[in-house]
Each structure stands twice: as structure tokens, then as C-alpha cells.
């Protein structure tokens, strides 16, 4: 091993010995549990913890489980309303915040948008529960959609704002120079350029809504059980590989969406580098 005092040609001073190994350990810590979870979903045994043989039986069982279907459908309905609503609001807010020039309520708005990220989830959950209970708002799934929309806003907002900030405002000016009015400039220049950012924001909001558990658990009423809430009740009543199977599917949805988001945003980055 090179002495730390000597600048070795093969180990630059900023390269710390052992950090690479620690990083491998770090990624193992992050991923081994997930891999174990996924592997055991193919366990033929009735008990999640005892491996017997490879089998698809728990996935086949999922296909027959009506309760899981309706929970999954509820999750999708909620996400398909909450995520677009949050994305629209986030887009509008981001446009004003980035392109709206200086104005007084800017700091206030920025704080407001990050608020749902700062308040602990359990606090938001019980506050929302009290709110709906005392005001007697019982709209079934709509209660959940409303609650989700709020905490989806910051997740949609971040990538959209980032995309706007990375965009050259000169392009809009140029368009206006070419006699496009402000609306046309927005519609034909800003919006198309911003679309990948909006898509990114939408996808993050969607993932966050699909995955939310605590707030939904507290707010859900009859027939509005979502997939995570259903998984929770499955875990509490007994651990079978069926829980692993449904968990694996939920993981897969998140991983796919986030991967698409990542590809979108890295394509964006490359575009910048060229442009």
C-alpha cells in the first residue's frame, strides 16, 4: 500500500484506499434486501421465510385475488387524478417562479411548495384525518385524491423548475422577435421544450402517489383501500410469499417509471451539452 504521504502515480491523493470496497458494501446493503424480497416471491413454500422450490404459484394466486385487483385499481385511479392535477399546478407555479420576474410572494410560494416535504408524514396524515373528520368530508376515493395531490406538488415541481431554469430564455425572445405573440411563443417554443421536464415531474408525482402508505392508511374509508394499505394488512395477518409477489410487482412499477424519468432527464442533459 502506498504511504499516504507520498503522491503515488497509481493512487492519487484524493483516492482513499478502502472507499471503493466500502462503496461496494454500501450498494450491497441497499440492494440485497430488495433482491432477497424478490427472490422469495418465487418461493413454492407457503411460508415466506422457508425456501422450498422455484414456483410461479404466488403470482398465479395474485391473478385470482379480487381484493388485490380492486386495491390496485384504486391505487391507479388515485394516481391518475392526483399526479396530473399536481403536475398542472406545479407547471403553472414553476413558470411563474422562473419566468415571472421579481415579485413579493416569491419566498412565500417557495416555502409553501416545499412545506409538504418538510412536515413529517404521520403529522400530515393525522392532520388530514382530523380535517376530513371534523368538516365531515366523506367522498371516498376523492378524499385520498385530494390528500395525494398536495404532497405530489413538490415532487412534480422540482424537475419542472429545473428544466425551466436550464432552458435558454433567449429562445422565447427570439420567437417574439419573429412576431410570435407571447402566447404563441409559449405554446410553440416553451411548452415543447418543457415537455420532457413536465413528463419527469408527472412520473415522479405518479410514483409518489402509487407508493404512499401512511397518509392513505389514516384517511382511507370503505372500499378505498389502496395497494400499499392492502399489503400492510397482508403483512400483519401473516407473511406468505404472496406478499413478496405483490411487493415485487409494486417495486417493478416504481423502478420502471423512475428509470424512464432518468432516461428522459439524461437525454435532456445530453441535449444541453450539445446545444
Amino acid at each position, binding site marked *: 500500500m502506498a504511504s*499516504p504521504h507520498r503522491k503515488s502515480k497509481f493512487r*492519487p491523493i*484524493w483516492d*482513499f*484506499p478502502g*472507499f471503493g470496497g466500502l*462503496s461496494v*458494501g*454500501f450498494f450491497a*446493503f*441497499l440492494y440485497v*434486501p*430488495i433482491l432477497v424480497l424478490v427472490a*422469495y416471491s418465487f418461493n413454492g413454500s407457503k411460508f415466506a*421465510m422457508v425456501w422450498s422450490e422455484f414456483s410461479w404459484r404466488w403470482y398465479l394466486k395474485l391473478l385470482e385475488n379480487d381484493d388485490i385487483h380492486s386495491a390496485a385499481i384504486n391505487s391507479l385511479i388515485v394516481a391518475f387524478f392526483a399526479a396530473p392535477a399536481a403536475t*398542472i*399546478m406545479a407547471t*403553472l*407555479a414553476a*413558470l411563474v417562479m422562473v419566468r*415571472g420576474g421579481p415579485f413579493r410572494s416569491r419566498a412565500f*410560494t417557495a416555502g*409553501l*411548495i416545499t*412545506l*409538504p416535504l*418538510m*412536515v*413529517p*408524514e*404521520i*403529522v*400530515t396524515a*393525522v*392532520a*388530514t384525518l*382530523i*380535517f376530513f373528520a*371534523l368538516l365531515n368530508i366523506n367522498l371516498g376515493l376523492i378524499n385520498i385524491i*385530494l*390528500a395525494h*395531490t*398536495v404532497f405530489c*406538488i413538490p415532487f412534480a415541481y422540482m424537475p419542472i423548475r429545473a428544466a425551466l431554469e436550464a432552458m435558454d430564455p433567449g429562445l422565447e425572445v427570439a420567437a417574439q422577435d419573429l412576431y410570435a405573440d407571447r402566447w404563441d411563443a409559449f405554446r410553440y417554443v416553451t411548452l415543447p421544450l418543457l415537455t420532457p421536464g413536465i413528463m419527469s415531474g408527472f412520473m415522479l408525482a405518479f*410514483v409518489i402517489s402509487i*407508493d404512499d*402508505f*401512511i397518509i392513505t392508511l*389514516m384517511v382511507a374509508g370503505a372500499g378505498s383501500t389502496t395497494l*400499499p394499505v392492502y*399489503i400492510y394488512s397482508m*403483512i400483519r395477518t401473516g*407473511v406468505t410469499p404472496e406478499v413478496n409477489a405483490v*411487493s415485487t410487482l*409494486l*417495486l417493478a412499477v*416504481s423502478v420502471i417509471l*423512475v428509470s424512464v424519468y*432518468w432516461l428522459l432527464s*439524461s437525454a435532456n442533459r445530453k441535449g444541453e451539452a450539445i446545444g
Partner: protein
Amino acid sequence: MSIKRLRLLGLLPTWVTIGVLMIGPLLIMAAVSLMEANVYGGVHLRFDVSSYVQILFDKNLFDETEFNPAYLIIIMRSFMLALGATGLALLIGFPAAYYIARQPDHRKNLLVFLITIPFWTNLLVRTFAWVIILGRGGFMDQVGSFLNIIGPDESINLMYTNTAILIGLVYSYLPLMVLPLYASMEKMDVRLLEAGADLYANRYELIRRIIVPLTMPGIIGGSILVFVPCLGAFIAPDLLGGGKKLMLGSLVQLQFATSRNWPFGAAIAMMLLAIVVIALMVNARAARRHAVYEQTGAEATHG
């Protein structure tokens, strides 16, 4: 349309949504925490601060007010576990963040992406993975007996302990520590390290005297991002603690899910909120101080 109208039009939906559905509920919760509980659930519309008093001084069964350490124990447990999880996450995350920050660009992006993936997957599912690993006869026991560390029918017995909760917490929020760490390490100028080495600093001193001070905003930011959700955690204590080792988050949930004491649950929630505000203020102050430090540093080098 004037720019003012446009601005208002753009911001109003967000203002209204977050204002009505986030600030509104928080205000109502604050009000409920100052009301009297109905034994079977709900509240009486009477002003009553007893929910806050109850955190430290409880009326015992004989209706005498006495110092009750029960909740203090939960608060301490939450603090210790949250601190422990934050420290562990920092310890595990620091070398990894540093290593990633020194990689070539394309690999860097991929590694960062790999860190974010667990963050975007379901927390409940990720904690459940640890139920399978730590549970009796689970993955860990099987590996243990395979390696002959424990007998075939024995168990490492970590399930339903504080250690299990700690592992669950670290695992849940590790990405939140690494990302800000990485962001500040990436910005760091490695030439400073070379300068340090030229001045005969060894690698330990380089970490302590150069890397840590320069990445302080990342360290503080990451620590707060981990500490705050750990404090209010509900899933890890619930699934890995066996309902016996409550933390603040589970205590709040319990008041609404079975104990039906809304004002007390709301009071604990308000306390959690207060801690968050303090943590954020600490963060803001640290960031400001760091900005001053960097500025003066820059002036010193340029001047």
C-alpha cells in the same frame, strides 16, 4: 392580460391547494390539541391544555398529577434511534458518496441513479424485506446456520428489538443522506487535497481538516433529511419493533387508530412539528454560516 394577473393565475391553484389541504389541516390539528378529549373518540369543544401537560405530567389512576416518564422514554427512544440512524447513515454514506463523486461522469450518473431507486420504491415494501431477513427462521438465520454461526433451530433473534428498528430506519432513509453528501463532494475542488498533502497532511487529516469542513452543508443537510423522518417514523417501529417499542410516530398513530385520544395525538404531532422547525432553523443557520465562511475564504485566496 397583465403580468400580475398571469402570475396570480399561475400561483393561485398551488396556493389554494396547499393552503386549504395542508395549512388548514395543520391549523385545525393545532386547535384540536387544545381541546378536551371525548372518552369514546372525537373532541369536546372546550379549551384544555391538558394534552400538552400530559406529555410530562400525567394524572395517575388515582387522579393525582404526577411526573410520568412514560412518554419521556418514548421521546428519548425516538431521539436516540433517530440520532443513531443518522450517525450510522453518515458513517455508511460518507465513503460511498465520496467514492461516487470521484468517478468519471457517465459512471457517476449511473451510481447516483442506483442510489435514488430505493428512495422511489415503496417504504413499506422495503421495510417488509427486513421482516423476511430478520424474522425467526428468516434469511439471516438461514445464512447463520449455513455458516455454522448458530445452530439449525436457533435464531439470531434481532426481530422486535431496538436494533431491528435501527437497521430499518438506516435502510429507509440512507439515500436521503447520500444524495446531499454527494452533491457537496462533487463540487469540492480536489486540488485542495493535493495542497493539503503537499503540506504533509495524512489521509485522516485530509478528511478531518479539508473534506469534512468543505462538505459541511451536505453533512448537515443530509443529517436533517434523515433525522426528521426517523423521528416520526411509523412503519419501522410497527413492523420491526413488535408494537412494544413505540416511537413518536407510532405513538401519534396509536392515539387515532385505537386509543381515540385525538387531542393528545395532536399535541404529540405538534411537538414533532416544532422539532422539525428547529431542525430547519439549524440547517438555515449552518448554511448561512457556511456561505460566509466560503465567501471569506474566497476573499482570502483572491485578496
